[in-house]
């Protein structure tokens, strides 16, 4: 009951006109920042932080957090419309959502993403309200061996994410992993494979890679075809852009699963919204009755990941508020902001500043409602972007990726990296090499290697550390099952085929009766 009392107090703080106004401003700015490529939530929050100096800390935090979860809604827009992920957690949406847009279903993709985001965001805040301390304890259980098991699971599912020729998918994964090795080795602190280029010390950032592999390559492929496209004829009437009954039926469980997966991964420090959206995509493909549709505009592939990144952004507030530990770049900045307001983020924050914590939590409920209303209302306007003639839209997309890849680190080198990936991506697309595994391997690669080496350092070389504790054992078992399942499946199929005549007769008999 104390929770409800606290939450009520939170709402009494969040509902004041001033706080409402700044919540609105925050989520609006967040949506725009999420949509702009290169400028992700961490940069967005950092840039707008000076506006909050001199404000009451609660109001300031309400606005800054609004930018954070608002950006999760905004990232969808450019992914769906122009195949350029606005920020990293929307990469999977660029894969699936853009295919929907090509079929004239951009509005449906945006609609389902908005609803999924709302459901997941709100559910995430409810969990944050009710059981933060327990969740925080769970998150702490994740040390290097647990992370390694998680990343390993990610890598194993990753190769299954790409359709087509499996050798090609595997090769792209390996290329991505090798590229992830470039730069400073975070264990020894020495550079590897940089070929004397200091720009490579930080390795290949995955956002420019994603912009090139998805955005630029798509532009080039589009330039081959006629300058009139199906997607331009999409109706803007609200009832046409709104998801139909069949879309709901296909998406509702994807949203639920995305919410759960997103929250579970989101509370882990260092994993975050990006991994959450990948995880959800993998889960959807596994659960789907028609996995072959993935990569060609499967609505579950938008609904799941978009829900996951929103519940993950709510989950990321758990370690920040309960432990005073920033679990992602964005929450690190939120923490820095708190310190500038003279607060002491830490395990005691709930006790020392209940008004701030509960006001912030309450404002997240309100912010999600504002976002869902705003985004749904704007869908026709967003979709109308696609009416721009192709010969203008495509160069504009290129401009967008150029400026975006520069702004991510304010570094011209990244623009060249983006271009290189773009041109490589064009040929990959032409010859049936899937781009998504490269991007995902870039994200997972260095973390997988680092956590493996850390784990073995901790155990002084013994592999037993990967089979020593319930979480690791569970994750490792799941991974092994996924690895072995196709083999078992093949054996079963073989066995069934041998018995086919009898089986078919029996089936036919019941059908007639």
């Amino acid at each position, binding site marked *: 009951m104390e929770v409800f009392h606290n939450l009520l107090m939170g709402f009494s703080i969040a509902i004041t006109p001033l706080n409402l106004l700044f919540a609105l401003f925050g989520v609006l700015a967040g949506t725009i920042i999420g949509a702009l490529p290169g400028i992700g939530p*961490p*940069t967005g*929050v*950092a840039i707008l*932080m*000076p506006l909050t*100096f*001199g404000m009451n800390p609660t109001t300031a935090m309400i606005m800054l957090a609004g930018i954070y979860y608002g950006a999760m809604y905004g990232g969808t827009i450019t992914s769906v419309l122009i195949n350029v992920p606005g920020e990293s957690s929307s990469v999977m949406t660029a894969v699936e959502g853009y295919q929907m847009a090509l079929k004239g279903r951009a509005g449906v993709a945006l609609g389902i993403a908005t609803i999924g985001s709302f459901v997941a965001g709100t559910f995430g805040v409810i969990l944050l309200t009710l059981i933060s301390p327990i969740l925080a304890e769970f998150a*702490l*259980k*994740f*040390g*290097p061996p647990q992370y390694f098991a998680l990343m390993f699971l990610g890598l194993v599912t990753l190769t299954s994410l790409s359709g087509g020729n499996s050798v090609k998918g595997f090769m792209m994964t390996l290329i991505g992993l090798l590229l992830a090795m470039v*730069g*400073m*080795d*975070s*264990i*020894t*602190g*020495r*550079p590897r494979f940089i070929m004397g280029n*200091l*720009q490579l*010390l*930080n390795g290949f950032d995955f956002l420019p890679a994603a912009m090139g592999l998805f955005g630029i390559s798509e532009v080039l492929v589009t330039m081959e075809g006629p300058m009139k496209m199906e997607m331009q004829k999409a109706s803007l009437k609200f009832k046409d852009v709104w998801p139909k009954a069949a879309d709901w039926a296909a998406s509702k469980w994807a949203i639920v699963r995305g919410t759960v997966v997103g929250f579970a991964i989101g509370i882990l*420090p*260092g994993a975050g919204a990006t991994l959450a959206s990948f995880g959800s995509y993998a889960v959807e493909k596994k659960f789907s009755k028609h996995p072959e549709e993935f990569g060609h505009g499967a609505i579950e592939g938008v609904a799941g990941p978009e829900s996951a990144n929103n519940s993950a952004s709510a989950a990321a507030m758990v*370690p920040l508020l309960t*432990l*005073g*530990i*920033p*679990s992602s*770049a*964005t*929450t*690190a*900045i939120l*923490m*820095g902001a708190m*310190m*500038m307001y*003279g607060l*002491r*983020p*830490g*395990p*005691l924050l709930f006790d020392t500043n209940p008004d701030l914590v509960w006001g912030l939590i309450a404002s997240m409920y309100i912010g999600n409602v504002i976002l869902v209303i705003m985004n749904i209302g704007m869908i026709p306007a967003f979709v109308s972007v696609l009416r721009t003639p192709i010969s203008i839209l495509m160069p504009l997309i290129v401009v967008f990726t150029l400026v975006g890849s520069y702004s991510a*680190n*304010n*570094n011209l080198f990244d623009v060249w990296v983006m271009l290189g990936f773009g041109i490589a991506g064009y040929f990959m697309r032409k010859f049936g090499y899937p781009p998504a595994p490269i991007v995902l391997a870039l994200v997972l690669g260095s973390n997988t290697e*680092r956590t493996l080496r*850390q784990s073995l*350092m*901790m155990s*002084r070389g013994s592999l037993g550390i990967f089979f020593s504790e319930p979480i690791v054992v569970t994750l490792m078992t799941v991974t092994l099952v996924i690895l072995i399942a196709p083999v078992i499946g093949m054996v079963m199929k073989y066995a069934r085929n041998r018995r086919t005549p009898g089986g078919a007769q029996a089936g036919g008999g019941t059908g007639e009766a």
Partner: protein
Amino acid sequence: MKKSRFLVAGLTLVALFIGMFAGGVLAKSDYPSRPIEFVVPFNPGGGSDNMARMIAAIYDKERILPQPLVVVNKAGGSGSVGMSYVQTKNGDPYVIMTAVPQVLTVPLTTGSTDVLHWTKLTPIALLALDEFMLVVRYDSPYQNVKELVNAAKAAPKTIKFGGSEVGSEDSILTDIFAQKAGVQFNYIPFKSGGEVMTALLGGHLDVVWANPNEAMSQMEAKKVRVLAVANRERLKGAPNIPTLKENGIDVHWQMLRGIFAAPGIKDAERKVLEKAMKKLTDSPTWKKDFIEANFLTPKYMDSKAYAQFLKDKEAEYKAILKNLGVLK
């Protein structure tokens, strides 16, 4: 038809130029006459970033300079990307950057001192010194430094010691500590201070280094215990925490937090920046919200003293790194 296309192109070009010149050219007057780019060579959210944003906020609030500082993150390569960027801005007084000891250690450990070196920048001022604290979990069996050292002596290389990558300050400090105490630890490197603290709280590590702003709030909540601070004297803000020296281990290490400008700027311009930084360190907001809140030691040095100080420190680091086998 052809003609008109060229006309269009020409007109647009002219308009582009006129428009941009109007926006770009500014009346030249006294320095600074436009905003100054304040480069943070690390990602948003870290200690350097916090400091830079705090400085920019105070400059803004107290009108220390007629123009604002605009914080820009140029992360990468443990600070070397931002550093090489500022190095290329020869003679441009509108670019400054935050400096931490990576500016000294990274060129050394990566063997790139010929291209990347602090002498290719203009040191402006040293602002503060940050502390290193030896931290264990609250329920740890080690109540004090002595117990930790004894445990390490009894079983060499078993105590899991966390910090940032090998060659970083955390690891150098661990090596010095181990050497002076005559023990060996099992050092496990992580990517950031946040990760180290998380792993400590989760019971994956036994002992770690942390800056006071990371450690103090956890200590107050009785999640961790601070065994000692790597300073010769106890901290004013935390007088109950013993020093390593009191424990018979004479290790002294502080993190330098300072400001550099681009190379080749005029003396007058350097003086303006120097004076502005002095004014900053005298401001009460700085003293209270940054120095005190983060348990830092205020330490102002002007350009000349700072340069000398860096030179000494570099020689010291070099000797240490050689001794540790990181440098050949």
